[in-house]
């Protein structure tokens, strides 16, 4: 391999990322429109300056499409599950049920703005917790702007291992971490540790927003308990099964917060009258809605089924082994650039095991939920068609963006651009790069709208940089995905989803202003801590 590593080649490799950033931040383009432009520049650079041929571009594009299709399967089925519950108005039942069970207003805000979002993130993700959470919070009297801010924060910690581990799988795929290997488990351990800090921070920040010092004092015991369950549970389960390491603790925390509502400390009515996030006038004049005869347990039926199905298939080894027999993957030939940068041939690239894939559990749960709700009359005539049409409408824009970003990442990696980028940064910043590792993850999520896409885009880059600097790869990759998780709170697509369902479209800038400081500070602190741990100690 003899790619000339100089400033010009580095700038050309960095150009698509800069263009993506400028188009999305300065010109407010969506990822669906910006990703193809970034891709075109990557392809042009690959062909002209990195001496790629059509075979290499075709091979990397096909690999990218295949990886993207697997991701899109999860996106679509997650959104399908959400649409089924939304069509049956199950989320209204969940909101009313929680109001009755939690008389302490701070605990109710924590439950509806953090714990319920965590639960939804554990299964669905892709902005669904924000879209669902915002109107529910308005329904309990939270001001619309804060009703968008709280779910954005509440869902963020679960972005790496949530959606049944989709973003984590993307990181493992981009960085070539073999499931079960020592590096895989060490990276999961570091990630679990970082995410625990972020999770605890989230709970405390929500208490602070609700009632400053008084809010933290009242909420601290609940936040500590929730954080041990969520953050600690995720850290532990990450060593056993990454698919359920966010989902299971999130389910447990949802049950435990209900039990906390019965404890002496939280069972009486309590609120801070002048809380800056609450709209007292709205609570008192809340509109009457059409009452449903659905109870709380029935509202959760598709989610209970999803939990049972996931646990049985993934934890009962004979069942898992039997279902994993079916595997789909494609062979790819060896390709190389004019500079001798080689991509080895693969027999079976990124195989999909459809019967143990997260999308299968999501799809089956959605279908059973649809039949169940329909049988009880909660999904009316024409509802099934609406559910499918809305799920496709919501999936397609992010689907096209994911395809563009994954192909872009693959072409950058396959032509040697990622390697040149990493080499340049390593040469200039040296080991001080560790401080910036989480910020790169934040940037990726901000640009692309998801932790998963951030990992796809920058996972390989972080790995290559860490290797060049002779830094421990696992904590750098963990910092990448933790940054991606933190960055999911400031992703423009999720903010727009929230402002849309909270009916304050156009106030995205105000939401961003509130949320930016509480995301950048922990990301920087994690970077500094990482630098101290892996460089100075």
């Amino acid at each position, binding site marked *: 391999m003899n790619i000339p590593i100089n400033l010009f080649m580095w700038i050309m490799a960095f150009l698509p990322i800069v263009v993506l950033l400028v188009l999305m931040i300065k010109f407010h383009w969506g990822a*669906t429109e910006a990703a193809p432009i970034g891709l075109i520049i990557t392809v042009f650079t690959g062909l002209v300056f990195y001496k790629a041929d059509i075979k290499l571009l*075709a091979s990397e594009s*096909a690999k990218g*499409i295949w990886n993207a299709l697997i991701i899109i399967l999860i996106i679509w089925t997650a959104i399908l599950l959400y649409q089924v519950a939304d069509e049956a108005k199950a989320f209204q039942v969940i909101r009313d049920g929680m109001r009755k069970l939690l008389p302490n207003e701070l605990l109710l805000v924590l439950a509806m703005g953090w714990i319920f979002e965590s639960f939804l993130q554990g299964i669905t993700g892709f902005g669904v917790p924000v879209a669902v959470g915002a109107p529910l919070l308005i329904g309990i009297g939270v001001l619309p702007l804060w009703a968008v801010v709280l779910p954005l924060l509440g869902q963020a910690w679960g972005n790496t291992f949530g959606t049944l581990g989709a973003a984590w799988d993307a990181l493992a795929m981009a960085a070539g971490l073999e499931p079960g290997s020592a590096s895989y488990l060490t990276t999961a351990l570091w990630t679990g540790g970082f995410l625990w800090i972020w999770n605890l921070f989230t709970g405390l920040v929500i208490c602070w927003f609700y009632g400053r010092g008084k809010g933290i004092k009242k909420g601290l015991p609940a936040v500590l308990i929730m954080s041990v369950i969520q953050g600690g549970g995720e850290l532990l389960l990450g060593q056993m099964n990454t698919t359920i390491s966010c989902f299971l603790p999130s389910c447990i925390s949802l049950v435990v917060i209900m039990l906390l509502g019965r404890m002496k400390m939280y069972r009486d009515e309590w609120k801070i009258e002048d809380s800056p996030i609450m709209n007292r006038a709205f609570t008192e004049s809340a509109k009457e809605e059409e009452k449903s005869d659905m109870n709380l347990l029935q509202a959760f039926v598709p989610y209970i089924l999803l939990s049972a199905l996931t646990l049985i298939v993934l934890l009962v080894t004979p069942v898992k082994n039997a279902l994993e027999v079916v595997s789909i993957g494609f062979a790819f*030939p060896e390709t190389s650039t004019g500079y001798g940068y080689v991509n080895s041939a693969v027999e079976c690239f990124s195989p999909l095991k459809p019967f143990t894939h997260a999308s299968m559990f999501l799809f089956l749960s959605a279908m059973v939920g649809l039949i169940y709700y329909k049988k009880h009359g909660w999904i009316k005539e024409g509802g099934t068609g609406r559910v499918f049409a809305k799920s496709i409408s919501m999936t397609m824009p992010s689907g096209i963006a994911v395809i*563009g970003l994954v192909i872009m990442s693959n072409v950058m990696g396959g032509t040697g651009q990622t390697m040149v980028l990493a080499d340049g940064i390593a040469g200039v910043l040296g080991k001080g790069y560790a401080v910036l590792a989480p910020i790169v993850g934040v940037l990726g999520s901000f640009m692309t709208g998801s932790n998963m896409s951030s990992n796809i885009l920058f996972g390989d880059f972080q790995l290559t940089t860490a290797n060049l600097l002779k830094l421990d790869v696992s904590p750098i990759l963990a910092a990448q995905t933790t940054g991606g998780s933190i960055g999911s709170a400031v992703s423009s697509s999720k903010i727009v989803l929230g402002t849309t369902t909270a009916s304050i479209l156009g106030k995205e800038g105000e939401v961003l202003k509130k949320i930016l400081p509480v995301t950048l500070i922990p990301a920087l602190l994690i970077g500094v801590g990482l630098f101290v741990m892996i460089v100075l100690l």
Partner: protein
Amino acid sequence: MEEKSFFMTNAGHLTLAFIAIVIAFVVLLIGLNAASDGLCLLGFVLVMLAMLFSPFKKFILKK
């Protein structure tokens, strides 16, 4: 009737682009396995056209 109106929407257009990408994927796989540069080029161009549809429509067609 309903199906026709869906494909007239933005989501419908993106769905068509998605279908084109899936077709291109098949063409790329055939091209790579048959070591045919022509098919590889055809598949790659199809992917690029489908990907560029959204920005083209939003920033050129609509203006």
